């Protein structure tokens, strides 16, 4: 294995050396080399397949490229990516947006699932507390995302079933289902779209955030 990798690399590096001369390899050459190195360096482990990297979608490819270049996507590309992602959102099949906030809290606490050391069949957690403050009682929360404490209260959702709350309820569902529908290169995973959480789990999370009885809104 290692020997092969070595040959691939030295072969390519030599080619790059000859082609690049004083200026070094071009961006396209470096991108190609990176792809080749990814293929030779990573392997399937348990249920986690190499295709998770080799079949990355256009959204991730465009955002990664923008990150490397150090400048955000232009408006047009960003809106196009958001539109593509918006189409993937599956709205609740029974029209019910608000689940059990107690279940939602459990899902928000769990960061398990979909790694090569997790069982392939387990229900994944939402990883929410890794990045967000949610229930104020939990002091172990991350700060990569904004605080979600008082999420519904701040947004004036006193009755999630009321017509006045409709837009906010739908946005919350959509954001959890596919965050990239609202912000092309958001750091937030696309929980519903990528199959991290199922419909019932998303419903519970929306409940945690918007149910006036949830500790989030106290």
């Amino acid at each position, binding site marked *: 294995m290692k020997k092969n990798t070595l040959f691939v690399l030295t072969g390519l590096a030599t080619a790059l050396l000859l082609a690049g001369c004083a200026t070094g390899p071009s961006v396209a050459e470096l991108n190609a080399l990176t792809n080749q190195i990814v293929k030779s360096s990573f392997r399937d482990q348990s249920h986690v397949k190499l295709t998770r990297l080799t079949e990355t979608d256009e959204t991730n490819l465009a955002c990664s490229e923008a990150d490397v270049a150090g400048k955000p996507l232009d408006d047009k590309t960003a809106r196009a990516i958001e539109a593509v992602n918006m189409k993937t959102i599956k709205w609740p099949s029974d029209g019910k947006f608000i689940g059990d906030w107690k279940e939602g809290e459990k899902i928000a606490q769990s*960061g*398990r699932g979909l790694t090569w050391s997790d069982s392939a069949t387990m229900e994944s957690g939402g*990883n929410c*507390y*890794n990045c967000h403050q949610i229930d104020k009682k939990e*002091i*172990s929360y991350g700060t990569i995302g904004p605080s979600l404490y008082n999420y519904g209260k701040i947004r004036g959702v006193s009755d999630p079933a009321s017509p006045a709350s409709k837009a906010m309820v739908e946005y919350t569902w959509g954001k959890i289902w596919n965050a990239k529908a609202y912000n092309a290169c958001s750091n937030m995973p696309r929980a519903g779209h990528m199959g991290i959480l199922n419909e019932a789990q998303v419903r519970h999370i929306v409940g945690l955030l918007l149910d006036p009885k949830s500790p989030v809104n106290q």
Partner: protein
Amino acid sequence: MQTRRETLKHSAVVAGLLATAGYPGFAMAAFNKAGFDAKTVQDATKAFGASSLAESKDVTITAPDIAENGAVVPMGASTALAGVKQLLILVEKNPSTLVAAFNVSDTVDANFSTRAKMGQSSDVYAVAIMADGKALWAKKEVKVTLGGCGG
């Protein structure tokens, strides 16, 4: 007060039981099995021969307010009182409360530190077993937080 002979006898019996349960046999007769099996601070101190248990400002427990991980929690016990025989470190909510027992001699300070495992947030105790059979304690609450992405 439990005599050393009784402790020996007790340990031997327990070791026998454990051996049949598939545990490795206990080679050391001096090991205070009853103390380390105790589920409460009171039972653990009793196993060290203490007849009474009282809070004391002269006993100090050192531990952090919050432990980032329950697998390793630094804690220490100390006292300046004369006549201290043993210093115990205990975690109230662990499956067995006693963590460690240090025998005080003329040649060491009555001040010991180690690191304990904690299954959950709990009060932790330092108990000084005195020569007159009294046990004096100090306690402190340690919160164990969830860390890491897996939480």
